């Protein structure tokens, strides 16, 4: 997979567990749609929708919720309410690069 390499060491240092979880969640979010054999099936049908089409349709609202949680967690992890101070430089712990 072509993904940007991990570089933000500062974030990993401050919140290693949360950062790792976020990285795993984002990689999983891509993987579960990239790996087609998981869902390229006609059955089980959901309503009249073949599974393949249903899976991709339901994926999007789920993804939206997951990404919203990720973004919210990243905000929580940010130290102190001084976003515009240069002192906070390089310390956006939510910035995770899988």
């Amino acid at each position, binding site marked *: 997979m072509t993904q940007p390499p991990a570089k933000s060491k500062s974030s990993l240092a401050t919140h290693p567990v949360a950062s790792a979880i976020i990285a795993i969640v984002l990689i999983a979010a*891509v993987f579960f749609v990239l790996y087609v054999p998981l869902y390229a099936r006609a059955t089980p049908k959901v309503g009249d929708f073949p599974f393949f*089409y249903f899976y*991709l349709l339901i994926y999007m609202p789920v993804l*939206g919720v997951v990404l919203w949680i990720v973004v919210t967690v990243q905000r929580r992890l940010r130290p102190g309410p001084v976003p*515009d101070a240069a002192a906070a430089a390089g*310390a956006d712990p939510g910035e995770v690069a899988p």
Partner: protein
Amino acid sequence: MSHVNYVTFTIVVVLFLVVTLTGFAAARWRRTEDMMHLNEWGLGGRGFGTFVAWFLLGGDLYTAYTFIAVPAAVFGAGAVTGFFAVSYTIMVFPIALVFLPRLWSVARVHNYITPADFVRGRYGSRGLSLAVAFTGILALMPYIALQLVGIQAVLTVMGVGTTSSNTFLKDLPLIIAFLVLAVFTYVSGLRAPALIAFIKDALVYLMIIVAVLYIPTRIGGWGHIFAAGQAHLKAISPTTHKPNGVFIPISGNSQLAFSTLALGSALALFCYPHAVTGVLSTKRRDVIKRNMALLPLYSIMLAFIALLGYMAVADKTTAGNVKKAGNAQLAVPYLFQHLFPSWFTGLAFSAIVIGALVPAAIMAIAAANLFTRNIFREFFKPDASPRLQTRVSQWVSLVVKIGALLFAVELPHTFSINLQLLGGIWILQTFPALVFGLFTRWFDRWALLAGWLGGMLFGTIAAYKVATPTTSHWAGSVDIEFGHTVYIGLAAIILNLAISVVLTLILRAARVPAGADETLPHQYTDDPAAAPVPVPAAPGLGTAGD
């Protein structure tokens, strides 16, 4: 086909007038003292919040051509070359969430307006920056032209202009629509599409919700729609002697094509200059992040729009009309015209026409900014004042639109479509310089340039060689590379990366100077509340650390 439905026509014209007025009024929206700065004209003051940005980005990324072409591809060939767009618009957001906030931050600190501005500052390389700017403009031109093709599809089905044998009269409605668009973009800049995006999105959502709830009740339900789609795709095409398409990608080859198309397109999307323009117009770093979670709502709409392709197959009249016209791109307009009452058809057609105007305006602005910042200022007039830069951008946006108009009117549509297909492959070749550049300065600038060139050449030649029994060249963007059926763009970027890595190692060993980097590590995560002070900095000089 020559019969014009006046109810439909009147509604389209009235809504077009509303949009025109909105476009001109937008100049006064969030007005600041000095409009003659590219931050104002070209980025709407860099002050859009989550709400406006959601409409703007949605209106920007999901183009009218998408509304026409994706269902047309699903109608013609099914899942692999059509429905992959859904998988692609899923993948793009988790990927973009990783790098877009960094791009936003560094662009905010250094007052970058285009992706090539960033590349210039990061690598201190005029050549690499020019390559990125050139690729961007090249990829945007046919994309703008295709927005016109989207409008044309609607006009054709409405019967407007098609009866005349005079080419000029035939294209007159299109020319008028585009000139109006060009003028209000010139006057209002990015504020115009931002405001019009509200109307566009409201209409598009209305159209698709009604279509999804209503059309299946008219043509026998979803079960019938999928069954008809499957039967059509299984049928053997008389010209190619192969099935028409793939309903569910079960074979290894079709799965690989499906996922590489999706991944390649997802990586490419936010390399497009118009996408970057939308991103940089936002107020805060969090606005971008939140939008990555909110934009998948648009993808749901896209998925249903894609399924309109199967509805067009299932509706015999529509399928017949499309076959008679010999143009799959008319599938959705015909479907609406046949099944909706004429007033609602008017609303739906307006959604497509207005849907074309928003991205076309943003693309023209993005291309104009690239020209002004990375060609005009970089190579011809380094001391250009913000005022002059804005003036140049305004004029270039006009030129770009007229160029696109000529494209759409004079050249066969297949030409624009092929070019847009190539555009996706080309723009992907700027990914290493742009996106990897946001994380590391490891790559050498010359190595990246060589990789870009290699990827561009390989991608273009490979796409040229794709043939089907009906088309000798440019028959698609999927081909067999190294024994696997993959998206050409993805194969090209792997080659691009290989060249970049190997050459970087060689140049490093040869101790070739790495060039200046005006960015600092913390600037990629900064979140300055105030927009950069509009001071014309000499390119690449003295802006570091401000």
